[in-house]
């Protein structure tokens, strides 16, 4: 085991100019992405954006028209799937129903010609890792969804692959179990010396688990960044809208700056070039109710329309003029202390300049 572990150092993945087309549809449109060794990289995007296709290209099940895929220094584009040495977890788990749990997990070792005794001990160790110790003798159809998920995970990592690919592995689980497994997967990743590429269309899941996230739209990488940067500094309205809760307010160009309600805005990022229409991207939880003017805060005037209690937070719907609505989210703990404004009252909302992001409606 020690020798195997020493050789199993995680690998960087370099995808360059990858193109995959089905007929006229370019499902992967010149995708380039550099994944660092040991990184937890999430491919995030709406349905049909090409996430699975990219993952399958990495695994070798989709053959691209052009481009390159390198694991470490090695070009993989023509290597057949079974020689790529990647562990894979499928959305449907794809467990072998006619084998027991331990036989499933030992399968990659059996194929590799590992001795039966070592197969058994390593499979059991892998099951232990996913907290399924003692379940080895069970049949697959005797497992719950979450347990099947864990078996699939154990099977993908038992042969200590340096790259693990996962396609929406948690999507079949209920919300609570899914959130639990997210944390567990993240902890598992820290123990494993493997580069993980993870596909999901759930932005919250992506933010929770990833070192970095590649947002994919229509076969292109829209933005690749760390979760925090992606959330706070989206580079396009698509990304802003896709990640987190977003309210957009149209703003006007004024000289080389930007104004809202006649006041010049202090921006976190440079004003987008060109002369197309601009939108202010607002995260409802970043707006402040009691805005003092400290020189670093933009203010937005409005009238309170509605107060909605949502358990952990209170949502205020504000009319910012011209029928534009802005919502403000206040954590319930804070809402209890400050008295909330009544419906119909005029208020000034504060938005710190570091949170003030303005984006062009059309990407340049």
């Amino acid at each position, binding site marked *: 085991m020690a020798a195997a572990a020493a050789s199993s150092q995680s690998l960087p993945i370099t995808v360059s100019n990858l193109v995959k087309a089905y007929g006229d549809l370019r499902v992967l449109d010149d995708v380039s992405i550099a994944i660092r060794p040991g990184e937890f990289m999430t491919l995030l995007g709406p349905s049909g954006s090409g996430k699975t296709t990219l993952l399958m290209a990495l*695994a*070798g*099940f989709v053959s691209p028209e052009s481009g390159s895929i390198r694991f470490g220094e090695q070009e993989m584009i023509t290597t*057949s*799937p*079974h020689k*790529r*040495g*990647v*562990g*894979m977890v*499928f959305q*449907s788990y*794809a*467990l*072998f*129903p*006619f084998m027991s749990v331990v036989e499933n997990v030992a*399968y*990659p070792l059996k*194929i*590799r010609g590992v001795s039966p005794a070592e197969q058994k001990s390593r499979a059991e160790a892998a099951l232990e890792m996913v907290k399924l110790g003692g379940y080895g003798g069970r049949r697959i159809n005797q497992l719950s969804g979450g347990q099947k998920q864990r078996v699939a995970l154990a*099977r*993908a990592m038992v*042969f200590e692959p340096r790259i693990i*690919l996962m396609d929406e592995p948690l999507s079949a689980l209920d919300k609570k179990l899914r959130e639990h497994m997210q944390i567990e997967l993240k902890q598992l990743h820290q123990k494993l010396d493997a580069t993980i590429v993870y596909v999901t269309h759930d932005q919250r899941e992506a933010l929770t688990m990833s070192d970095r996230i590649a947002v994919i739209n229509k076969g292109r990488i829209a933005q690749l960044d760390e979760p925090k940067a992606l959330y706070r500094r989206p580079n396009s309205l698509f990304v802003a809208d896709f990640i987190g809760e977003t309210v957009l307010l149209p703003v006007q160009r004024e000289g080389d700056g930007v104004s809202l309600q006649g006041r010049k805005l202090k921006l976190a990022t440079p004003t987008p070039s060109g002369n197309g229409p601009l939108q202010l991207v607002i995260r409802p939880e970043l707006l402040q109710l009691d805005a003092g003017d400290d020189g670093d805060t933009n203010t937005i005037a409005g009238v309170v329309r509605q107060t909605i209690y949502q358990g952990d937070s209170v949502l205020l719907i504000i009319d910012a003029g011209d029928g534009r609505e802005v919502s403000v989210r206040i954590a319930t703990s804070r809402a209890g202390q400050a008295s909330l404004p009544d419906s119909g009252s005029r208020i000034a909302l504060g938005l710190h300049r570091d949170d003030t992001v303005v984006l062009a409606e059309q990407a340049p």
Partner: protein
Amino acid sequence: MAIQDMPGASPWTQRLLAIYGALVLFFLMLPTVIVIPMSFSDSQYLEFPPTSWSLRWYREYFGSSAWMSATWTSLLVAVLTTLLATPLGTLAAYGMHCTSDRVRNSLQLLVLMPVVVPSILVAVGVFHLYAIVDLNYSITGLVLAHTALAVPFVIITVLSSLNNYDMTQEMAARSMGASRPQAFLGITLPQIRFSVLTGAFLAFITSLDEVVVAKFISGGENATITRRMFNALRDQIDPTIAAISTCLIVVSVLALAAVQFFGARSKGRT
């Protein structure tokens, strides 16, 4: 589906349906079953019900070297056809399953041709073809012709079970280091085993039962049992035919039972 499973049907409807079902079964079975008592008759002619009983027609059958050689020809051809048609049909079904819908649908039409075209046309065609390549009256020729007739049945049964099979399992196996043949043999085949066995059984029966094509292209020392029976019926009707038929029924039933037995075992494992 058991009749009792029908929700909303009154007991009377259910009973009528059961009687109806039994009648249909009876009429389906009757022609097959009737030859069995006839074969044990002591009479010179085929008669039902027999007036006296004996095993003389079985002695006649098993004692005749002509009948025996035809029997062995038939069994040999059926076994070889099964051995050829089963892997061929299974691989064809697998290939068709893995292609796009459009290709699969057109292939399906093509592959079903031998079943759809009247056998007499196939027989005439094969006869003329074999005259050119000199395969008439040969075991090889018979096996090839029967394989062409049997393959569609294997394809249909295997294809339908592949439709209920999750091919991502094979992808999973391949990602874990199994080559494609390894993944197919180790993961897919065990799960579609029953349909492959059923296909093999159908191939065996197709060959054993086949008379029209055999009538044209088999003969001499390589005549099949069905061909010889046909000729015997034309010349004189004697109860040997009934004895042979009974034996054929027994062979078929045994083969079917074997499929069911192994099928039940493979299902029990999943």
